[in-house]
């Protein structure tokens, strides 16, 4: 990459999400929250029952990830992204409550992409299968909810310069569509 990398910090403000463009690499620092299939199901059940989410979601970023156990002496085990589309049914509701970013891999549904535009949130890609590389950017990690879900428990991670690509920006651009279009023969 020839361009200077942009650094962003959570919680994400609207002017920050608005400045991101599909296709650019960014380095993310601050707190993020892991949640995948089972945790999302509980988030929605909790909201339906009138309860509160285990963390204040406003401005926050959820990482679709079920990490491997941390080896002794390590802060974090291997922790690459899982496929995001399984969370598509839950994501628009969380975005409407103030979620500003999601990190994962793979395409999102039209409803999610619409919600991103409407609420000025972004979808960021972590490199699938780069779990060890990403683990090295995690400086602190703790389980904050749903410990019974094992690798699917909700963890709060403090990351420093986590390498990500902007996939869907707030302007409706989509790296998956435009990137592939540029190289199709």
């Amino acid at each position, binding site marked *: 990459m020839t361009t200077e990398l942009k650094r962003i910090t959570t919680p994400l403000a609207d002017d920050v999400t608005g400045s991101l463009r599909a296709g650019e690499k960014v380095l993310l620092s601050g707190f993020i929250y892991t949640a995948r299939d089972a945790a999302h199901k509980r988030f929605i059940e909790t909201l339906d029952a009138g309860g509160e989410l285990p963390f204040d979601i406003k401005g926050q970023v959820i990482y679709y990830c079920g990490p491997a156990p941390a080896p002794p002496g390590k802060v974090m085990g*291997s922790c690459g992204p899982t496929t995001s589309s399984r969370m598509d049914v839950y994501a628009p509701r969380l975005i409407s409550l103030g979620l500003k970013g999601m990190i994962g891999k793979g395409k999102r549904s039209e409803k999610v992409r619409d919600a991103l535009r409407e609420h000025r949130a972004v979808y960021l890609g972590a490199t699938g299968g780069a779990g060890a590389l990403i683990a090295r950017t995690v400086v602190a990690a703790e389980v904050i909810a749903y410990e019974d879900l094992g690798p699917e428990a909700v963890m709060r991670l403090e990351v420093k310069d986590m390498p990500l690509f902007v996939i869907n920006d707030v302007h409706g651009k989509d790296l*998956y569509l435009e990137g592939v279009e540029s*190289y199709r023969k």
Partner: protein
Amino acid sequence: MREIHVDDIVSVVERLFIDANIHLPEMMYGAIRDAIEKERSPVGKEVLRELLTNADTAREERMPICQDTGLAVTFLEIGQDAHVVGGDLTEAVAEGVRRAYRNGYLRKSCCHPFTRKNTGDNTPPIIHTKIVPGDGMRITVLPKGGGSENYGEVRMLMPAEGKEGVRAFVLEMVRKGGPNPCPPIIVGVGIGGNFETSALLSKEALMVPVGKRSDDGELADMERGLLEEINATGIGPQGYGGTVTALDVHIKMAPCHLASLPVAVNIQCHAHRIREAIL
């Protein structure tokens, strides 16, 4: 007749699964380095460089390359003159898996299909056995992640669809997967046999070394042609757009019924983890 003790099987299976998950094979380092040369997209090149850094990091930190350390797929080629002693062979493989996933800090990714409750120790493993001449046992492990496995399919084509039908099916599956199975991918294609043998052939095809062409000239040509077409889809590394979508395509074929043309496509991610040992 030669005796093979189950204790040896347990310890070899444990070592293979830990080793496979932590150390990317040299073959894959080579394949990714080649891909960096071939890739035209700057973003694609950057992703591929991340994969090499990741593999180095996994080695240095002794942690898995990918957090999805997979279901424990195990192939046993058992010599017909070998005699397994000291216990139950299936249980020995399961115990090796149990120990590997516990002692190697690997993620346990096996659950009940409906309740989704985790079995807790990544068992049962998926075991494929083959009886072969000789008195030894070859154990090959292929921890297989869910992201890539989800884009596999078995389809019973009409015999009249022939090679063109196979080609179209493979390309359809690659396009359907897009970024999700973590490209650059390896594509395994099983043709013929019946419903279940085509699936097994597609998995065995993934175990052929990257860069090796089929001994069958016709299949070798199909492999080359498909690889070119897959790389022309533009999907690229991680689906961000690029010219390297697949690292290789392998095809295995067997005779089939007069009325059938079974075809299976099994996709592997770039974190192609494979190890073998001979007892």
